[in-house]
């Protein structure tokens, strides 16, 4: 049993570079929400299930999540050169923009209206990220652990990080190892069932 493949894939390293550049330039207050919409809903390079899987890895590895994701997707299709194209795409254009902004408005970011605008944009990007989480819930339907276990694990993780404010590493370790063990048991059962019908 393997997950369904994504309908599309990047055509070339240039395609990777340009796609990630466009995506990064739309990402105000973090790129995550845009990544999900562009790669899953528009370009269809990833299914929802694949996006969650890749995002889990991108989040657990050190380094910025979206850069890790660009690195993984680029590397999967075009090896090291693809990984570099993905990372360059997600960093180069925004870096030029941010340096030009630094040149032009070195001190403006301290002013009251800029602080206010930042506050408003922050509130919107919090909503964007939460909405991505809601959209991805439907991808759990095909999870071998079953929906009730998934919901319990998700609730425990949310409570740990969001309400109790435990360090992320603890939660990942505790909830993560429980989830991985249970998924292993379930997957192993599926395999035995297939072998002895």
């Amino acid at each position: 049993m393997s997950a369904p493949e994504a309908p599309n894939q990047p055509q070339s390293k240039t395609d990777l570079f340009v796609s990630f550049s466009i995506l990064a330039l739309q990402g105000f207050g973090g790129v995550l929400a845009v990544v999900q919409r562009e790669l899953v809903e528009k370009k269809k390079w990833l299914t929802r299930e694949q996006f969650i899987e890749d995002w889990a890895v991108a989040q657990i590895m050190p380094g910025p999540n979206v850069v890790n994701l660009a690195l993984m997707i680029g590397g999967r299709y075009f090896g090291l050169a693809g990984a570099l194209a993905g990372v360059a795409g997600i960093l180069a254009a925004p870096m030029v923009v941010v340096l030009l902004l630094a040149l032009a408005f070195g001190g403006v970011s301290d002013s009251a209206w800029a602080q206010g605008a930042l506050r408003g944009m922050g509130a919107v990007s919090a909503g964007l990220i939460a909405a991505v989480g809601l959209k991805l819930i439907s991808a759990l339907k095909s999870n071998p652990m079953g929906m009730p276990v998934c919901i319990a694990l998700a609730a425990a993780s949310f409570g740990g990080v969001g309400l109790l404010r435990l360090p992320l590493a603890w939660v990942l370790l505790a909830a993560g190892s429980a989830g991985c063990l249970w998924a292993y048991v379930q997957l192993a059962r599926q395999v035995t069932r297939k072998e002895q019908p």
Partner: protein
Amino acid sequence: MNPVLNLSAADWLQLFEHFASLSLLAVGGAITTAPDMHRYLVSQLGWLSDSQFTSSIALAQAAPGPNILFVALMGWNVGLNASQGAAWWMQGALALTGVCVAMLGIMLPSSILTYMATRWAHQHRDMLAIRAFKSGMAPIVIALLMATGWLLTVSHDQPARDWPLYLLTLLTTLVVWRSRIHMLWLIGLGALLGGLGWV
């Protein structure tokens, strides 16, 4: 006042090493290592002023693109501090050196590790342990996304003043969840409402 510096090659190397040593610790985003950058660059070495440090983070968050670019801005500011009074092209050259040193330091170690690890995992993607890892982590990843949204919201902790902000976040969540409106409109709306002081 911004500090005036005279940096040697060994100093640049030291800057690179500091960012490189934080790179592998930056699980969950480089912003989690910002307190240590502040300790080192502002308190210990005095290479950046406090306001340069804070505005680097603020500017990178306001601009499009990954928030990791605050590290590039820190390198940029160190370069500017190291070239005060020099010709403009010299200032530009040192500022760009700072950008390269800081970004390579923070990116190289984590990127190499991620590339090697994910390649190995992709080659062995049918292994039971790897499939179990991916399935087991899925609900946790979704919960962490929602927790991020939640934490960003409650970081404004004065309900009497901040309720319009909460409302804006809630409305954004519902609109994005249920419709396909372009996100830039929402971000623009947030900036406008915030800039006018309405939220």
